[in-house]
């Protein structure tokens, strides 16, 4: 397997029951597939770990021995993440873990060293305003599900071109409005969303069916 330097800081945004955790599961499955293909004996014990903050315990079934669960009130979790290499961290309902707007020194270090340590970071929130200030600047990719509310508020804590983001927000919302609630539920697990790359200003529609 070829090695690539770098990491991904992915923000998954969308209102309740739009499919955010479902897509996070798919991402974790890909990570698991990767680490299954590698011989763990050839790596130190801090490699290829999955870290999960998962208040509703919907991702626990994807964890393996040695993976780390973060619970509300835990202290020192940032240091544990800094000790990992080529690993994935998924924070579902991230704001619950970080109730105020301050970013600890160690959390900032995680963002600073993620490329060097190969840490993929995935933050799931139901609205971009739930990202702490400054943190959204570190996000370089988004999965944008249906999000309600004001456009200005939406982009206030999103990284990337604001107009592109607003376009995407409306694109997803308009498409989702063509479904009733029960119809939308039946789309499981293929809920519609748009993938947006901040650096290239490129967007990809996923699971958009013609209506």
């Amino acid at each position: 397997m070829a090695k690539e330097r770098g990491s991904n800081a992915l923000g998954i945004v969308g209102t309740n029951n739009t499919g955010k955790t479902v897509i996070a599961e798919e991402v974790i499955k890909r990570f698991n597939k990767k680490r299954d293909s590698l011989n763990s004996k050839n790596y130190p014990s801090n490699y290829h770990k999955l870290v999960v903050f998962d208040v509703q315990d919907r991702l626990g079934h994807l964890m393996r021995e040695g993976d780390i669960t973060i619970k509300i009130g835990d202290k020192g979790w940032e240091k544990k993440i800094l000790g990992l290499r080529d690993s994935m961290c998924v924070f579902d309902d991230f704001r619950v873990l970080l109730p105020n707007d301050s970013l600890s020194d160690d959390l900032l270090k995680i963002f600073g060293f993620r490329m060097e340590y190969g840490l993929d970071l995935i933050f799931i929130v139901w609205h971009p305003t739930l990202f702490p200030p400054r943190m959204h600047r570190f996000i370089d990719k988004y999965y944008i599900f249906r999000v309600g509310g004001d456009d200005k508020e939406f982009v206030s804590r999103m990284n990337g071109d604001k107009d592109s983001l607003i376009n995407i927000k409306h694109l997803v919302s308009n498409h989702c409005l063509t479904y009733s609630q029960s119809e939308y539920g039946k789309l499981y697990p293929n809920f519609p969303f748009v993938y947006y790359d901040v650096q290239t200003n490129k967007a990809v529609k996923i699971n958009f069916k013609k209506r």
Partner: protein
Amino acid sequence: MESIKALEHNDNTPDFVEVEEGSFDSIAGIFDSEKGGNTIEKELDEFSSASSTEKDEINSTIEEENGFNLDDLGSSEDEDSDSSEGQEEVVQEDELEDYFESAEFIIFIIELAIVWGTNYYLKSKNLDKITKDELEVTARQHKSLVKSWAKVLRKHKAKVSPEVELLFNMGASYGIKIQAIVKKQEDRKKREIQEARQGKKMQVVQPRQGKSKKVPDKQTREAVIKGEKIVEEEEEEVKGFRLDKSKKIEQDPTVLI
């Protein structure tokens, strides 16, 4: 490829953003590759050139430095895999504050249990019982105990663990009731003892033939008072938690109705 016109928000609005159709597989490939980088390459080179023993040492050092816990999944089945063993985690005082209250409560319950257990043992040996006050530790020892318990609770990440919460609720629900019942019993017994000492008449039961039972003689009355005193003394020895011993009196054949 579909182009979408940008909404006009300001003069610098780009005309459109390119939106492609795609699948999840087409965008998720970024998570498939092994990560590289200077640090990773260096660590992997060192690890691959190390002997088996050295690799174990490297892993032990990593686990100690990073404070890894094999918690939740997998570790509960195999206690030996708990990487927190052997590592000393420095716990700050302010990190334990949240646990002090529940630690105090646990110590209180344990002290009661120790008194009961000890007295059970002493009784079996026909030795004198002890009181809770005799077991009282110094303030310094108490503080150390609280801190130790707080560390235990913190280790298990429990500000108020479900077990402690249950004890709290039971203490609140039953403790108050028991206190009230025992107090009532004590007051009743004190009254009875006082009445017996003053030589007041016991309640008399009228048989069918109209004959009345005799008032118990002085010897009998004194035996009753003595029996009650023994019970009273036993209750006094256990402070803070009183057991309903009224049944003992009822079983005493000298109790008169």
